[in-house]
């Protein structure tokens, strides 16, 4: 496998973003809104992805092939933050997302000392995404029934949590 790095998105990444953002498999298993047009996707990209302080392109040998983001809480939830990710389907099964999650979570704990917990939730049917989190050292804490609407349907999700004090899984 080539080198996996994270970097902020640039406007010039739009074509690669669109390539996997319109991938049916990626959309089915993620929270990504289905983009009805290139304009929708471009809008989302410019208004959400680019300005977001914690959105990162997952890059393979410098080329963006997916994204990962971190959303910190505030007030009584300021000790925790949520991560989400999506990867182009043709890159699945190689440990790329796991690596990206490990890079991001260790950066988060280093740069945000108030964050004691990083969490992620996945559709109970999304076994591959659950494996990513387990390999990255997250603990499955429970199944939250009918927790959120994904692709128009209320969905049961597995909630995973990683604490700044949890053992660090070896980065490989």
């Amino acid at each position, binding site marked *: 496998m080539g080198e996996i790095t994270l970097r902020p998105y640039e406007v010039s990444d739009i074509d690669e973003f669109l390539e996997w953002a319109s991938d049916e498999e990626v959309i089915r298993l993620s929270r990504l809104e289905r983009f009805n047009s290139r304009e929708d996707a471009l809008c989302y990209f410019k208004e959400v992805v680019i300005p977001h302080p914690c959105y990162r392109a997952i890059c393979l040998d410098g080329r963006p092939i997916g994204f990962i983001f971190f959303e910190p809480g505030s007030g009584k*939830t300021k000790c*925790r933050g949520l991560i989400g990710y999506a990867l182009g389907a043709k890159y699945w099964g190689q440990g790329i997302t796991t690596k990206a999650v490990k890079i991001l979570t260790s950066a988060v704990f280093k740069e945000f000392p108030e964050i004691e917990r990083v969490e992620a939730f996945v559709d109970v049917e999304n076994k591959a995404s659950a494996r990513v989190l387990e390999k990255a050292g997250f603990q499955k*804490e*429970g*199944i*939250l029934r*009918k927790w959120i*609407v994904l692709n128009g349907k209320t969905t049961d999700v597995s909630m995973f*949590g990683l604490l700044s004090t949890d053992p660090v899984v070896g980065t490989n």
Partner: protein
Amino acid sequence: MEGTSPVESSKNEYSNLSLRPLDVSDIDDFMVWATDEKVTRFCTWEPYTNKEDGLNFIKNTVLPHPWFRAICLDNRPIGAISVTSNSGNDRCRGELGYVLASNYWGKGIVTRAVKMVADTIFEEWPHLERLEALVDVENVGSQKVLEKAGFSREGVLRKYCVLKGKSRDMVMFSLLSIDPRPQI
């Protein structure tokens, strides 16, 4: 706010228990539980120290709240119970919260109030499929309330919330609109 008619308890045991909106005229009863540090131990807020803060809470938080009720004994408020609503993809769930004056603890009053809420909220909010509640791992009394009211314990979310400056592990409970409900 819809559905503001009082919800009354049907069995004899709790026939004088009811839920109704809380108003500024209830301020003195509100201050009884809101100033008690036994009550606020597992709340994110500190005990109230003056009536004006209490009145501001009622005006700014209670009155505009999507669903907030006083728990009443013979129509006098002895606590409160509320359900928050969410929007967008989170609209299928609402969070339950409750508080009761400490001298009324241990009599099954909150369990009864929770059951009353469960019996009306899913009708009032047809988009709601999940009622959830988060309880501090050390708040065993509150966990028992939810278990007796028919909620399922789904897991412990570690260092989930900040309470009085410290991150706390919280137990997640839920009741779905389709779950069986224990008899009131």
